[in-house]
Each structure stands twice: as structure tokens, then as C-alpha cells.
């Protein structure tokens, strides 16, 4: 069976762990519990008619207290770049993180996940900017780990993109 390593990247408290838990275990916990270090989960998905084992690396969010080690990305085929649109800064942080990833890994498949779509009224990001990123080829998806909206689609799209990406 094909196996692909995918990483969850983004600032702290954007919902990376919650997205993985929703995807792998169909669970959502309202209480925010910060991640220390790395958690690795696996899930088999169907993509482009094939079964793919996604090895999901849930990396701790970056901030002044924890920095991401680029060595964790070794062997990564793609990544979900997660932001919390109610916090404008998380988009900036994500884009800066993406620059570092591209420097190290080149342009590999990625999906910008606008998490917390259940809190649309509180979104504070510049959607024009997101639209511009989309125009430039960045895959974008709105999701909510809380309601499940867009979660399966996000991981499936990434799996599909990773399969299609020339190795």
C-alpha cells in the first residue's frame, strides 16, 4: 500500500491537533490543550481510486516558546498549513512558515486550511489576500474541526495532490 507522510503546520492554537483527531478518531474536544512535541497518527484514505496510508505528523505550534525542527519534515510528501482566521497573525505566521518549508523542501503539495469556519462571524483575516494566494495556485479549504466541515475533503485533497505530485 502506498504510504505518504503529511505534516500539520501552523501557529499554536489554530486547531492542528483537533483537525487530526476529527479526521482520525471523529472526536472534537472544545477545550484547547496545547501540543508539546510531535504526535504521529495514521489513517487509510481513498484517493484517485487508490488506498493510501496517510502518516500524519502533528507538529507543535510555533511561538516564542517552541520552534519547529526542520528535521521533522524529512520525507514529507505534503502538508496542511493551518490557520485560525479569527487571529489575523496566524496567516502571517503560516506564510512565513511556508517560506521556510519551501526553502528546505521545495514546492511540494500543500493546502491552506482556514479552520474554525464555525466562527465565521469572528474571522478577521484579509480574504482578498487569501483569494490572491488561491489565484497563484495555493489550494485553500475552509474547515471546522468542531463541526467536521471540510476536514475529510482537506485530507483527501492533500492525499490526491501528493499522489499526483511527481516524485
Amino acid at each position, binding site marked *: 500500500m502506498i504510504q505518504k507522510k503529511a505534516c500539520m503546520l501552523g501557529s499554536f492554537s489554530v486547531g492542528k491537533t483537533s483537525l487530526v483527531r476529527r479526521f482520525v478518531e471523529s472526536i472534537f474536544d472544545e477545550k484547547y490543550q496545547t501540543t508539546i*512535541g510531535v504526535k504521529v497518527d495514521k489513517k487509510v484514505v481513498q484517493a484517485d481510486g487508490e488506498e493510501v496510508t496517510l502518516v500524519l505528523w502533528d507538529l507543535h505550534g510555533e511561538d516564542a*516558546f517552541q520552534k519547529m525542527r526542520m528535521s521533522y519534515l524529512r520525507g514529507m510528501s505534503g502538508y496542511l498549513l493551518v490557520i485560525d482566521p479569527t487571529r489575523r497573525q496566524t496567516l502571517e505566521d503560516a506564510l512565513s512558515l511556508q517560506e521556510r518549508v519551501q526553502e528546505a523542501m521545495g514546492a511540494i503539495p500543500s493546502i491552506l486550511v482556514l479552520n474554525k469556519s464555525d466562527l465565521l462571524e469572528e474571522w478577521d483575516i484579509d480574504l482578498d489576500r487569501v483569494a490572491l494566494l488561491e489565484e497563484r495556485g495555493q489550494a485553500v479549504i475552509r474547515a471546522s474541526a468542531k463541526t467536521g466541515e471540510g476536514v475529510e475533503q482537506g485530507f483527501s485533497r492533500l492525499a490526491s495532490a501528493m499522489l499526483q505530485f511527481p516524485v
Partner: protein
Amino acid sequence: MKSPSIYDAFLAQQGAALLEFRSRGVFKPLAALPDWFHALWQTGRRKSFRLVEKSPFLENFLADAEEFWNSRAPGAANSGNWIERDASGKEIPLEASAFWLEGKRVLLVRDLSGTFAQQQQLLQTARDSLLAHERLIRETQKKEILLHCIIHDLSQPLTAMRGCFDLLLARNLPPDIAKFVQTGHQESQRQEQMIRGILEAFSADLSGQQAAGADTAAPPDLAVCAQQAVEQFSPAFTERGISLVFDQSLDPHRNWRSVGDAPRIDRIFGNLLENALRYSPKGSTVTVGVEDCGATLIAFVDDEGPGLPTDASRDRVFALFGKGKDRPGKAGLGLYFCKMTVERWGGTIGADNRPGAGSRFWFRLPRAPEKSVAPQEAPAPAERVVRAPVSAGAPGESIEPPEKALRVLVADDNETIRELAVELLRARGHFVTGVADGRAALSAMGRAKPDVVLLDHEMPQLNGVETARAIREREKSSGKRARIIALSGSALAEDKRRALDAGMDAFLAKPFDRGALFQIVETPAHASIVASSGENAPLAEENTDLRAHLQRITGGSEKLLRSLISSFLADAPGKLAAIERAVAREDADALAASAHSLKGAIAIFNAQRSVSAARNLEGLGRARHFQGAGEKVRALKEDLARLERELRALLPQASGRRNARSTRTHRRTRPGR
């Protein structure tokens, strides 16, 4: 495997597994393995085993570890924390280190369960605090935006009111009528003062501006400010039988310049004097003065009132919404404003009981740096120059005609305010062209050839700043330079700075009165940035009778009334349609702009519900979300339909055609006296 030793006991106590790396992911235990290791990876009691298939994380780290071993570097390579789950689902936090030990490539894997919870709690607390701080900042920003919207809405009708009072006072009114109009003018001016005071106090506080507004070019003279405050407030004190005096021991030849800016110093003196007025008994004396304390100056207001309370409420004298127990002021903002302003300039403020009786309210400010003090009696800064006509041009008093007629271009999308400015300037004898947006202003520049251009800050097409930049760009080839004055409902330092940066010469805050308008339009080109008359107070009372309200703001002019209503009836449907289009397309910028424009148009009719509905839509646009927008549009439509019916009923006949006067150049006419 060796027999149990002290090393085994130590490793067991540490919850650690010590493994020797053999080759290709194969490890050999160097000591007894802890229970968690068996539970996790079920290696049994084999002498060697592969780990890489069991843990993707370890597999990844092994690449780093091998690199480290091959480098023969001292120390250790560390994996960082990671979490594994055993068969029961229990999470085990681990950390691995690779190093050389007695010629062996060794991997130490430790269970961090003992310290992990504490580490996580610490990090959790730090991040929760960060999130709470971010939320607080966002909430603060939202409130500030809301405050600006409210201030803007409150200010708009005032411009019209004061303009109408000015127009009325320019006529030959019977003395008894003139007195009423004069009172109306004064009250609207007071209202303006309060609105601006709130804006300054809160917005500066919320945005955390530091040392905002300190005038380094022409620092204020505290003694002059104190003396002017005494002159200004003397009538009010006299009326109450209190004597207000300027400290005669002060040496006027000394240098009394401090940091800060004169208008705010004036307001601080004003607030302290209002406070003294409330607490001073009849027959007492209030003394205002300044003392020299070397590097600092102390300004004071001494009263002979009951003195300060001795309980804890004394500490709240300068607090936000802090009010006296017996004779509270208005909103509890005055002394709070004083404190914030003085502290922003690096000063201190306080109040003490005086020996004998009464209290001293004082503020201490650093002296102005020598280099910023003018070597000779410099002309007052522009802001002060413009304030004078507010009283000189007070109701009922005649204002000297201008030395020469000017060509003036007025650009404001709010038709009412535009027409008032046009009418006032036309009556003054100037040639005036009115246009509704920045692009039209640029088109009109060629034919109007204005000496002075008034540009509203927020306009469709091109806003004031953009238009000013374009005008300045064009002037590079023509060699001619018009004076450009920014018109804005906000008088924040940031807005003024943007106006200056765009090449504007002066700044007139709305609402304005005719004195300030004339002065700023007719001020010679060297004047720098200027705030308007801007001394303001309370909210307009709810108006239930539309006819009476309109008669008041138009000064009873049937012509102006018809013009106002016709313009509104012609414009409102288009503005509403623009809002509907913006909502349908989820175009946030268009929604904010069109709702703002309609709100300004409705505000003049004091239709609070419609204004509120338009404001809500503007807020949605600015927040860039559309949930509930359709409902709000429907509510707005219903309110507008009601307003339109009422307005049509006021028109003597169906003369809904838009008055095109605002886009024509007006002939110069002298006002009748």
C-alpha cells in the same frame, strides 16, 4: 545481557531504555528495559530488535542520530519530545538522545511522564495568556472602531446645525430671535466640545498613543494658557458669585513654556476650572497660576471649597468615570482626560488639600527643550490662530469680509454638508464649486482653478488623501499650487498626519462653524495643519417632529429644505441599490462604502433607526462578514421607505428633481446685512 547493576537501577528509576545501535535500525539493549518499552514496542526478551518500523518518529530521528555518530562529535543529539500510544491508547511522552558511550553508539530513550504534565501546564498557561491578550486587543480595536463610527455620526448633524445657525445669524434678525439662535449656536458648540473630548480621551487611551499631539515646533506657554483660561471662565464664575483670578505673583517675563500642545493645555485648565466651579462656595476665590520648579513647571488651580474627601474615593478623583459624591460633573471624563493627557506628555497630575481650607488641583509638566522654544515672541501656532475666530465669529457678531474673493472647490459626498459649506462660502463672497467625490474634484480642478480646495476624508471613487496626492502630482507640471484643506469627522493625530503626508496644508474637523471655515479657507498659504474650532458637548435630543427638525436645520429656508429633501430622495434609492448589490456579491468594501454614504445622507434627517441600520451594515462590511446582512438590508429598506413617505409629505409639490446647484460654480454675492 549483564546481570542487574546500579546502572539498571538508575535507568529503571529514570524510566529510560539504553540501547546500542548495531546497524540498519537494529538495536541491542544495554540494560533491563522499562515496562513502558515492552508495552509500547513488544520487543520481548530478544537480544536485538528493529525499532524503525515500530516508530516513524524514531525512524526519522535515526537519520539525525547516525549523522551525529558518524561525525564523532562530543555531546549528544537530541530528538525533542514526541508522543507514542501504547496498545491501550495511553499516551507516553518520550525523548531520545544519541551519543557515544565506551566506544558504542548509544540511544537513550526516556519516558517523560513525570515532568511532562508540569511542562505542558506551564506552556498551556503561557499560551492561554497570549490568546487572552490577543482577544483583548481585538475587542479594544472593535470598540475603538465603534466609537469612531458613533462620533462620526454624532458630528455630522452638528455641522449642519451650526452652519444653519451661522446662516441665520448673518441675517438681520430681531434681537429676541437672534438671542435664541445664539443660544442654539452656543449649545451646538458645547455639544461639539464634549463629543471631541470623548473621542480624544478614549481613542488615545485605547490605541495607546504615546505623547500624542505634543507640539515640538511651538511649545505652549503655560502662563498664557492659564491667563486665557481665567479670561474665558470669568463670566461663569462671576455668575455664581465666585471670584476667578490669575496669580499676580507670576513673572510674565520668564520662560513658562512646557511640553504639550496649547489646545489640550487649554482643555486641561478648562476641566480643572469646571471642577473648581462645581465645588467653590459663593463669595470664595479661585486662583490660577504657574510655579517654576526648575526642570518642570507646575500649573495649579486653587479653590476655597470643602477640600478633598479623606476616604478612598479621593484616589478616584482622576479615574475614568470617577465622579464626586456631592456635586458630580457630567460623565466623569474631564479629570480622566486631564490625567491621560498630562501623563502622555511625561507629566504628573494630582490634587491636595490646602492648609486652612480648599484644595489645589495641579499638573506638572517638563519644560520644553530649549531648542524648541522660539528665541523671540513667535506667532502663535496655526491651531491657536484658527481658534480665535470661533469666539470672534461668534453668533450675532459680524465677521470682517475677506480681503479678496477666492475660488474654492468643495468636495464632500455628504450633500448636505457640501451645500452648507458652499452656501456659507458663497454668502461670504467667494466663488465656490461643489462636487461629490474625489474624481469629480480632479475633473473640476481644470475649470474651477481653485485657490483653495476642501476635500472630505472619506469619499467614493477617490478619498481625500488620494485626491490630494493626485492634485499635487498635477501641480508639478502647472507650477500653480492650491491650498488643500482636509475635511474630516475625525480629528485624530493619525488622520492629520496622513493629510499632511499627502500634501495637504490644513485640517478642518467636522462639524465646523462658519468662523473656523472662513478662517481656514482665508488663512494665508503658510499656515500649517489646523484643527477646527472643535470645542464641543451633549448629544442631540431625539427629534420626533421631522418638519420642526428640518426647519431648525435649514433655518426655516424653504429653498434649502426643498433642496435637502430632493437631493435625498434622488440619491437614496441609488445608495440603497449599491448596498444590495454589495451584499449580493459579498463585496465587503463596497458594502462599507455604500452604507457609510447612505448613513451620512440619512443622518441629517435625524432618522435614528435608519442611521442605526445603515451603521450596522457598514460595520458588517468593515468586519467582512455577511451573516444577517440580508435581514439588515430589509430592515433598512422598510425604515427608508417610511422616511421617504414622510419627506415627500413635506414637499409642497412633487419637485423630486435633484438640484444641480451643487455642481455649478456660484456667482459671488455679498451677504445681506
